[in-house]
């Protein structure tokens, strides 16, 4: 089983590399790493909201600069942040590119009988920048806040405990299952030669996923029996941690609030 199905190993390895890289940065000593996870998540969400509100290139560039400054203060390598944040805005730019000739406005340049308008170009630049800054802000959270801290923050923000538990257990078992699936694919690969046909590839993938899901269900049954044997009790919150909010946390919240209000004022006025 070589070819497309066999290359799943690369997908799994790529996903694992992404997570391990992020965890490495998250363990560094930086501004966002030192913040209370509730504050970090809510403040970065506030900054993302401010970016979504704005319709001005200059304001979007300011938020881009704030994102870069936060990344530098949080020991996030800019190349890594850029690498994570580049693909989505580029694809988004391609999606809205026709607007350079569709949107009415003053003609910037004429080519092939089409008029590229100033408004069209401005829209594509603004849209791409907004998506880019939005993706960079999400990447910032991913790279500076360990997911266990995010899960703890969810509980402290009163997300229902049953849901927090499902998310926590999903995350806990995810890497075990990545490893199991990777071993299944490698084991099949090592016993097969030649390229498989489309039909053969589907047969292989069906068996792989079927076998894998059955193993998952078996593991679920074992976990269930083990938990019942222990009485089924669970602590009130997974990854629970108590932390006091400090001045730095208040400053970050203030920055987010100012960003949202400021963005609204620039767009709609007072």
């Amino acid at each position, binding site marked *: 089983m070589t070819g497309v199905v066999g290359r799943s190993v690369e997908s799994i390895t790529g996903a694992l590399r992404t997570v391990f890289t992020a965890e490495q940065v998250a363990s560094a000593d930086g501004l966002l790493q030192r913040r209370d996870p509730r504050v970090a998540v809510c403040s970065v969400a506030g900054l993302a909201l401010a970016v979504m509100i704005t319709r001005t290139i200059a304001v979007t560039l300011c938020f881009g600069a704030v994102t870069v400054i936060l990344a530098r203060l949080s020991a996030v390598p800019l190349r890594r942040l850029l690498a994570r944040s580049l693909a989505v805005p580029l694809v988004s730019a391609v999606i809205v590119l026709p607007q350079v000739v569709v949107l009415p406005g003053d003609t910037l340049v004429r080519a092939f009988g089409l008029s590229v308008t100033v408004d069209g170009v401005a829209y594509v630049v603004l849209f791409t920048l907004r998506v880019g800054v939005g993706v960079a802000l999400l990447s910032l959270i991913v790279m500076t806040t360990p997911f266990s801290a995010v899960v703890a923050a969810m509980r402290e923000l009163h997300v229902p405990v049953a849901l927090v*538990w499902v998310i926590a257990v999903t995350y806990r078992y995810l890497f075990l299952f990545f490893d199991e699936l990777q071993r299944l694919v490698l084991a099949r690969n090592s016993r097969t030669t030649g390229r498989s046909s489309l039909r053969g590839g589907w047969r292989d993938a069906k068996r792989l996923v079927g076998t894998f899901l059955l193993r998952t269900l078996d593991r679920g049954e074992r976990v269930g029996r083990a938990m*019942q044997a222990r009485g089924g009790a*669970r602590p009130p919150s997974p990854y629970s941690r108590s932390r006091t909010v400090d001045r730095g946390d208040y400053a970050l919240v203030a920055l987010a609030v100012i960003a949202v209000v400021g963005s609204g004022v620039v767009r709609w006025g007072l």
Partner: protein
Amino acid sequence: MTRQIRMHIPDGFLDPWVAGLLWLGSGVAIGLAVRRARDELGDERTPLLGVVAAGIFAAQMLNWPIPGGTSAHFVGGAFAGMLLGPSLGVLAMTAVVTIQALVFGDGGIIALGGNLFAMAVVDVLVGYALFRALRGVHETGAAFVAGWGAITAAALAVGVGVGLSSAFSYELSVTVPIMVVGHALLGLVEGAITAAVYGYVANARPDLVLGRGDDSLSLEVGL
């Protein structure tokens, strides 16, 4: 070249008010699912659902070959609904989509509500409803239609969300047909994968199949 059937909306595509409405819609649906699941599961069995969700997440990593040398990935929302039932399916996919966003950086923070609405609510509930309605006619066929219809309906939800947003320059008359037609075609792959995986699991463990026992995973599994 790998082509993933993904519909994560990044930040920047939705207006804040549309994102807020989608957060509200997914919040209500997930809240109802949590309430029903609490009754169905009991406290000690809740973590088991996470194990199954992790399995579905990992299964998404496998490349399925499609003509032209490219590949597609399993999304699994309809399969989750068929295997777990509507409430637990919604919770499982909520865990998957949340981890995709906050661990792998797929989608956006503000757009997370929209992504949850499309992939954890619409995908699961439509898949479950189609499978339940059609399984009496032909089980594997129902699984195919569920996978195909669910992904197309989720794409419709995304198309409406971005079409209503002034931040995205294309209007509903453009976004809805493009998303629906595009995903109706790509959804054939999701339908085929759902039917293939369902057939395999149903043959090996008929006790798990919706409607043959309970309306969710068997009591033996404990969900």
